[in-house]
């Protein structure tokens, strides 16, 4: 049944939505959208390294993004540049270095558009395995660190004082972001992965009054975006990543009506 490219894309998208839902909530809560963006940009470098060394692409992206995250932590301690400048520095320089490296790799034909914006034709059966096994692992680890991560998201000092070790949870969470980027790049593309993390979550916030609900709505929003996005991608022959993210945007706009109502009720 996975012979059909469209079925493969759909199954891949469902797997990704289950992971981006909960991770996206933490990205929004912890204000990490630009951090996610930076890691995603560095993924291009990971792709070129994978091609040069003939290495698994997902693993290569995962390692590159993790290293970039580590460099960011070091730079934060070394310089007085503000966080957003550091993020921009790393995002664009790793993207630039990745593009330059592609220029040198003349013996390989790259589908740059596919890397940047995702390509449903590119999803193979192997990718499905990577997405579903990788995704399950990410969710498992997230469940394991949920308590300390969530508590420190609400208040770091409280979590630290009451013995939850928030620093460890934060480090593990960073690795999880690198992992979701690694497994979803083929579908969504590196320019739009953060959109997949944030937009369904933003929609979910408008519909929820507690964190559990927000995670669930965020997953549902992601799933709907994948369905609508992929079907319209097939119908109108548009790239998969932008179609999915545009669908998420439409859902977000609809969710605004709901929030207006609740605010009016409260006042």
């Amino acid at each position, binding site marked *: 049944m996975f012979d059909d490219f469209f079925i493969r894309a759909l199954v891949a998208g469902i797997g990704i939505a289950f992971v981006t839902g909960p991770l996206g909530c933490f990205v*929004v*809560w912890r*204000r990490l959208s630009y951090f996610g963006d930076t890691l995603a940009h560095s993924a291009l470098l990971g792709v070129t390294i994978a091609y040069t060394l003939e290495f698994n692409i997902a693993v290569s992206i995962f390692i590159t993004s993790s290293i970039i995250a580590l460099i960011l932590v070091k730079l934060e301690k070394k310089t007085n540049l503000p966080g957003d400048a550091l993020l921009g520095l790393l995002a664009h320089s790793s993207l630039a270095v990745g593009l330059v490296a592609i220029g040198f790799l003349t013996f390989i034909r790259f589908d740059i558009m596919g890397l940047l914006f995702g390509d449903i034709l590119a999803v193979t059966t192997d990718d499905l395995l990577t997405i579903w096994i990788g995704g399950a692992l990410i969710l498992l680890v997230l469940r394991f660190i949920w*308590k300390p991560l*969530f*508590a420190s*998201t*609400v*208040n770091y*000092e*409280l*979590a*630290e*004082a*009451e*013995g*939850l070790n928030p620093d460890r949870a934060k480090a593990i969470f960073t690795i999880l972001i690198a992992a979701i980027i690694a497994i979803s790049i083929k579908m969504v593309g590196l320019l739009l992965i953060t959109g997949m993390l944030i937009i369904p979550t933003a929609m979910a*916030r408008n519909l*929820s*009054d*507690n*964190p*559990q*609900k*927000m995670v669930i709505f965020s997953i549902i929003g992601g799933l709907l975006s994948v369905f609508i996005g992929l079907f319209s991608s097939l119908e109108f022959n548009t790239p998969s990543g932008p179609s999915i993210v545009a669908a998420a945007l439409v859902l977000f706009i609809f969710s605004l009506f709901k929030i207006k109502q609740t605010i009016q009720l*409260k006042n």
Partner: protein
Amino acid sequence: MSLEKNILVKLNNVGIQQNDKWLVKGVSLEVEKGKIVTLIGPNGSGKSTTAKIALGIYKNIEGNVEKFTNNVGYVPQKISIDWTLPLRVKDFMVLTDNIKDELIDVALSLTGVTHLKEKNLGNLSGGEFQRVLLARAISKKPELLVLDEPVQGVDFTGEIALYELIKKISEKLNCGILLISHDLHTVMTATDHVVCLNGHVCCSGSPKDVARNNEYKALFGEQASQTLSVYEHKHDHEHSNDGEIKKN
């Protein structure tokens, strides 16, 4: 647990520097089971900093902290919840520990906010929020309770009731309490030991000793040392949060 004196946490000559300036320096104190230690001092004297050192939040400190318990409840001085994170009171209650629903109810009723359980944290008033913070800290039955201005923004009668509650908790749970407060006269009656801070320990001892201390007078003025009288005012009834009268 230390054997001799039931010490829960002990600060040995601790200090912390920030940008080459000492926030606090040379502070030594200990909190024992069932005892209330109060930190007083003017703004910027390092009370919260000292509490955070005792909690192990600051890592690069001078001196050392010996902590003999991991069961800690903390009410921070300030806490702000981002709008992006929808959080009800009952979600907040289980933030650091999986507390049973019955115990949540007990803790909320002790601080008089049972009716807020389903409410969103963002919609609470300052005083209500303080009551929830205190309820959360005591609900896990901690051995050590660190309260950084726990009654700020609470109405006057509520303030007295909450201080009485804090005293009761220290006896009932036999837990040690490190309390930071500006309310000199209310607090002093319930306190076993007072540490007066001003970047360093300017004096410490029983409330009466501290009140007589000259450095304390210099810091807070003659007036403060006189108002440090025992609070012996009694009511024959109290009000529950919805205004209903409960006879004692």
